[in-house]
């Protein structure tokens, strides 16, 4: 176990706390940088989706994980970013202008949503954000002069100074990676500064935060705005990746996927956004595997193990039926959310931390370290 001897305030401020960070994140960075050379085009495309989902995840974590304001309307912010990009591109605005603008407009809308949300907490806020999601979806379907309604909009490849970044090319891959890294750095900066501490303060106790001088209205709106802006940036990349956008892509289900990203990844750390994004994006290839390859594989295995031909074909059929069932993805999501909430409320990242501590403390690890304690004494009246 590493014990750090602190002699300097900077040791608590800097992002890389010790040499181990350089090694682990350096290796990770190297792997992601080399990935386009190592993996096939399908996997590369999936990784780009992981990047985009992780950007949204970081945005959602700032709002939900660190400020404690739930949102089931983030698909709407993504839509705003995506439509801004598509429409601006149609008008001939260059990418370097409409990319930040996608974030800016989403951020402004986020602030506007944050104001009415000031008086709402918990489940009521969730319902309000769902309603906001429906409104945006509806607007996207009806405002035909801008969004082209339900027929959707084509999005051309990004062009920067005569250079085209195709949606499947390596340049687009690195662009998404760069945006993700910058967004994570910005989020880390917020979290280690007074703004981030105010967010965490109003998550844990609004009463105490107010009595310490935190203006709840300002910081809640700010959290909404930052979160929406980050999601808007992701929306711009999302539009370019899909090259076609239409209102039915930005439904409640997509918002749910974003919530799943942070729930499964872990809401206590930015790691959760990336881990959750990997999980959510990789469910699809897994399902494809279940549908296409696994039935055959299982049947083959059964035959090898000496099952009668009738039995093995039965196995093949059953697995194929399960794999091909409609709504399987939703069912898998549902089961996984329930399992995570019951057994691992801190998500994949929480599991990783426990594993690490177990190895660090090897014979001395005790389960109770992470047991959640309920406190019932709270000044509820002041809320």
């Amino acid at each position, binding site marked *: 176990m590493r014990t750090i001897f602190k002699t300097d305030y900077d040791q608590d401020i800097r992002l890389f706390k010790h040499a181990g960070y350089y090694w682990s994140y350096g290796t990770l960075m190297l792997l992601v940088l080399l990935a386009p050379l190592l993996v096939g085009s399908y996997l590369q495309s999936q990784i780009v989706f992981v990047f985009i989902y992780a950007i949204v995840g970081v945005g959602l974590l700032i709002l939900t994980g660190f400020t404690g304001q739930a949102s089931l309307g983030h698909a709407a912010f993504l839509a705003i970013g995506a439509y801004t990009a598509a429409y601006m591109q149609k008008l001939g605005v260059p990418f370097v202008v409409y990319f930040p603008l996608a974030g800016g407009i989403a951020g402004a809308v986020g602030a506007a949503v944050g104001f009415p949300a000031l008086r709402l907490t918990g489940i009521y806020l969730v319902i309000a954000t769902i309603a906001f999601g429906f409104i945006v979806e509806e607007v996207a379907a009806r405002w035909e002069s801008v969004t082209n309604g339900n027929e959707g909009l084509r999005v051309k490849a990004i062009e920067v100074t005569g250079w085209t970044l195709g949606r499947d090319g390596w340049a687009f891959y690195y662009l998404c990676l760069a945006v993700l890294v910058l967004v994570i750095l910005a989020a880390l*900066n917020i979290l280690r500064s*007074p703004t981030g501490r105010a967010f965490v303060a109003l*998550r844990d*106790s609004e009463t*105490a935060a107010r009595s*310490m001088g935190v203006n709840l209205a300002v910081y809640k709106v700010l959290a909404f705005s930052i979160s929406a802006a980050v999601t808007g940036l992701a929306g711009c990349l999302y539009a370019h990746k899909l090259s076609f956008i239409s209102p039915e892509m930005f439904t409640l289900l997509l918002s749910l996927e974003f919530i799943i990203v942070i729930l499964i990844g872990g809401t206590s750390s930015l790691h959760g956004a990336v881990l959750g994004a990997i999980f959510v994006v990789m469910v699809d290839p897994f399902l494809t595997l279940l549908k296409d390859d696994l039935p055959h594989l299982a049947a083959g295995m059964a035959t090898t193990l000496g099952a009668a031909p009738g039995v093995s074909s039965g196995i093949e059929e059953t697995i194929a039926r399960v794999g091909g069932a409609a709504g399987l993805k939703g069912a898998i999501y549902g089961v996984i959310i329930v399992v995570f909430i019951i057994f691992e409320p801190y998500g994949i990242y929480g599991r990783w931390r426990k594993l690490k501590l177990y190895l660090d403390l090897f014979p001395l690890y005790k389960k109770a370290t992470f047991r959640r304690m309920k406190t019932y004494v709270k000044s509820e009246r002041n809320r």
Partner: protein
Amino acid sequence: MSCLVVDGITLRFGGLTAVDGVSFEIEDGEIFTMIGPNGAGKTSIFNVISRFYRPSAGRLVFAGRDITDVPPHAVAKLGIARTFQNIELFENATVLSNLLVGRHRHGTTWPWEDVLFLPKVRRAEYAHRDCVERVIDFLDLQRWRDQLIAGLPYGVRKVCELARALCSEPKLLLLDEPSSGLNVEETDDMAFWIRDIRDQFGITVLMVEHDMTLVNRVSDRVLALNYGRVLALGTPAEIQRHPDVVAAYLGA
């Protein structure tokens, strides 16, 4: 000059009058204690002063400024810090970041500067940390600095609350039952600290307290309340002998 003037504060919840025309003045550099049986309205007065409750009538003047209609966060910015009877710390943060939140009112940077973590932000962080470290030193919290509040014993949390309030370098410190839930030794420490807070930092202290030993040891003046009304105001010795106070506590 008076640090805080409470002038005819009345607080009604529907038909119940929790505080009924209470007036008092707290001088600069004084340790002023409110006592009274349960339900006498002590915490209600606290919540009125820190602006969580809006008084039905009356006026509050802090350092020559009317604060009757100022929102809670702005009161904190003016230099009134408080602790809570039931601890209200930020549970899932370390002691250090809890105390740094106490520095919020001295923030000098804009959120966009925070996003970029400009050198200016870093310098401001050093200054905040310096102040926090002085408070940590004062209250002997060194060994708990990097721990999460959720894992701390009650006594330490109580001190953390006091520390967080001190980090905001207030002019007036409101302590809501600082010794509740503390053992004899910890209460002893608390008594020394409260005196030192006034003597070393020049902070005016207004507190609600039930432990009369502590009250007698530290307070300059005591205000006795019952049923939302002022029973008596004077030095601890005077209050203890006051017939109305004796009647309120022991029965006539």
